[in-house]
């Protein structure tokens, strides 16, 4: 198969890659770049374990083909913490025991980040809709919803302090 050239930014770092055009973003992350934080769960876009942000919006990386990331900015769970500090979502997930087996966690965090970046003060219903594409078998979602609420508050406070 003819390889394609793809220029992309992943976790704030620029890459020029030469993948097979039928390679998925999930495969590129996991197999080519060793970014195994993004998980493979169903490979048909149902479980959400492979969720990453593409230009700031949540997407199932198992459904995205290599040429589609050309010129895009990708953020994975590995890029969520910045300057050695955890993202408030990461802190609140740990505090609320929203992490059980942890396999859905990376995808859940990325969906939650998309939500909070676009709706900083979400209602419970909005949070539930925001993570409805991410299956979790352990938690019953209760602690995850609480953690996202809490992260929204922490981010709000941070914003006020910075202003």
């Amino acid at each position: 198969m003819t390889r394609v050239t793809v220029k992309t930014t992943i976790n704030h770092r620029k890459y020029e890659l030469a993948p097979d055009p039928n390679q998925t973003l999930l495969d590129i992350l996991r197999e080519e770049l060793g970014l195994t934080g993004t998980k493979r769960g169903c490979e048909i876009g149902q479980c959400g374990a492979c969720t990453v942000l593409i230009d700031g919006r949540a997407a199932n990386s198992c459904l995205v083909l290599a040429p589609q990331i050309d010129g895009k900015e990708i953020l994975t769970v590995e890029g969520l913490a910045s300057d050695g500090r955890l993202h408030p979502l990461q802190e609140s997930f740990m505090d609320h025991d929203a992490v059980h087996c942890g396999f859905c966690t990376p995808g859940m965090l990325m969906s939650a980040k998309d939500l909070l970046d676009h709706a900083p003060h979400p209602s419970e219903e909005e949070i539930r809709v925001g993570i409805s594409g991410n299956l979790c078998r352990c938690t019953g979602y209760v602690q995850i919803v609480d953690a996202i609420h809490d992260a929204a508050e922490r981010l709000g406070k941070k914003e006020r302090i910075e202003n």
Partner: protein
Amino acid sequence: MPHPHTIIGKPARRVDALGKVTGTAKFAEDYSVAHQLFGKVLRATQPHARILRIDTLKAAQLDGVEAVLTADDIPGEKAFGIVIKNQAILALDRVRYLGDGVALVAARTKEIAERASALIEVEYDPLSVVSDPEEALKPDAPKIHGDDNTFVHHKVRKGDITKGFAEADFIIERRFKTQFVEHSYIEPEAVLAEPLEHGGVRITGSVQNLFSSRRSVAAALTLDLNKVQIIQSTLGGSFGGKDEVMTSMCCRAALLAMRTGKPVKMVNTREESFLESYKRHPYVMEYRWGGKNDGSITAMEIRCIADGGAYASMSPFVTWRSAVQATGPYYCENVKTDVYAVYTNNNYTGAMRGFGSPQVNFAIESMMDELAERVGKDPLEIRLQNGFERGALTATGQRLNHTVSLKEVLTRAAHEIGFQEKWSRYRNAPDGAKKRGIGIACSYRGVSLGAEGADAAGAIVSVQTDGSVIVSAGITDMGQGAQTQMSQIAAEVLGISMDRVQFLNTNTSGVPDSGPTVASRGTIMGGSAAKNAAETVRVSLIAAASEMTGLPADTLDLREDYLVDASTGERLSTFSELAAECFRQGKPLYGFGWHKSPKTSWHDEEGRGEAYFTFVYGANIAEVEVDTETGKVDVIDFVSAHDVGKAINRNTVLGQFYGGAAMGLGYGLLEEFEIEDARPKQLNFDEYLLPTSMDVPRIHPIIVENEDAAGPYGAKSVGEPTNEIAAPAVVNAIFNATGKRVFELPANLERVLLGHALRRTSDRGAVLKDSANDAESCKTRRSRE
């Protein structure tokens, strides 16, 4: 001098949470090494057939292929099984379900392995298929193993049911059915097997019960147990599901690794996982109760048939728990229970969270509401009237000599949501498109393995010379929080903060065989072992402290990372200094702890015994809204009350409450792995429906704590009880709303609206169940296929 707990009972962060939120946690598929090969299984294309010929030549000749193996290449035992060793690692001369492995390939890439497996030629001679457990009981049914499909019969006998039914004012007789359920751990199965120096093999993977998998690998490869090392990777959920399916993957990967001399990685796709993995048992349950007009129960006659599928797996144990708990926590003098497991050509069935209790609880708790209805009482009243109290004699003749908190959990749950008021109001509500209902269910559950077998576990607490601590144990963490609970217990005993503790993932070569992490035994068994281990180290540390300070040992204590004078609380040294001093004195900083459960007993023939050393009690209440035009049921409120003995970590206990309820609601309303003519209908999450964040309501948790002498700090169990009564609570709520009872799970739209399931044809349109069952339509369906 006792002082209040500083860590036990508090909501500590999980010890493994940081890696899981940053993406550094390594799950099985995240392990890769240089020069690894990819292993692939060729599975059966017939659900029941003799294998006439396997030709691997073309596959073996493909460039990049390093090994193609069949059952002939297994040097040792070709089959495994915890109870009955009849599950082949690779099919010998026959396949018995579509998940059976026939041949293995190891190749340089996944793609080559897939191409090679497609080149393997297998010639089958199809045999008659049996896919219905009641059909499988008939004398002329195709036989799956030997000459009888019934491979388990457990009985419980108490009193005299003839006399009991004669005393009854009325008899209630009902038939219930439950479905296959997929565990649906979000992480599919994966392992990496590496040949070791000295002729051994190391397997890193998503294995729940490392020691039983290790036994089978060693037997298959004719290796001693000390040459087979299984290390648990961070496990992405299991729920009882990563046992035998992982044993076979471990055996297969190890065979390929030993044959090629190279590391071999194997990963199931979700479709392979659905196809091969075992499920929760479907049950057919016939319940016949004799009742008095005052609401008491004079006799219970119970007959259950479990579909064991193609292999024995854990069926003998799963069905035993069903038999022991089949009457529920209710007084009845006369009981006759028979539980059977039968082979079919379906996916084999085994352990899944609840382990034989969710099925019978659905029947028992539905029956209880039917009884209430018959005598004109409300569902809470009837349960309080018949429910066990301390000193009660169970159906198996066991006297309950611990705090029996059944009535406490029932009344606290009912009070939380105003059960009785809502129940009467909804019952008398006028007809409308949307109707509300509320339902209650309760249970008692034997803790740990009980009389299933040896029940003991070990743990190691190793203090380093800088005062940091390593804890390891034979009990594994699959996401439930076992590592955190054991770390908390060790930290409590040593008087240190949690951030000093590092927990190691379980390695079979580093810790003693502690049995499986099943049966909600993690905290009670592993926690007790960790407590014993930490206490051993503590004695050593205090002895060193006494020598160092010249003060008597009994005046010293360890608190908040310091050695203190127990009476004044004066700080004498840091924990780190004490650890270094202990090392200088040549005293051990290492403690091994072992815990063996109290005695239990079982008499097969008499059908009675002291089945479990203690029990837990729980009650769930579901409030629903039923759309009477579509049959859709929304759960709008939920109460979960469980006596856990003592909550070691409040947060992880709540996590079990919520997650257990969600899984129970999936069981009650959504989930069904359908098998038709031994062919599965769902192979991924597009068609197998799990509850999403939109389906699970807020859950009101009520943690009840009656400390039990059998557990560490009084702790008992929480994982399974929280999962086993949500479904009947929902079904009872649907009855309260509509006046119609659902007798088959799940209570999906068609069962709620029509009273029975719809079945899909091969071209995926729905047909009515009854017409689909007649011979004519079956024929049409087959010809279309």
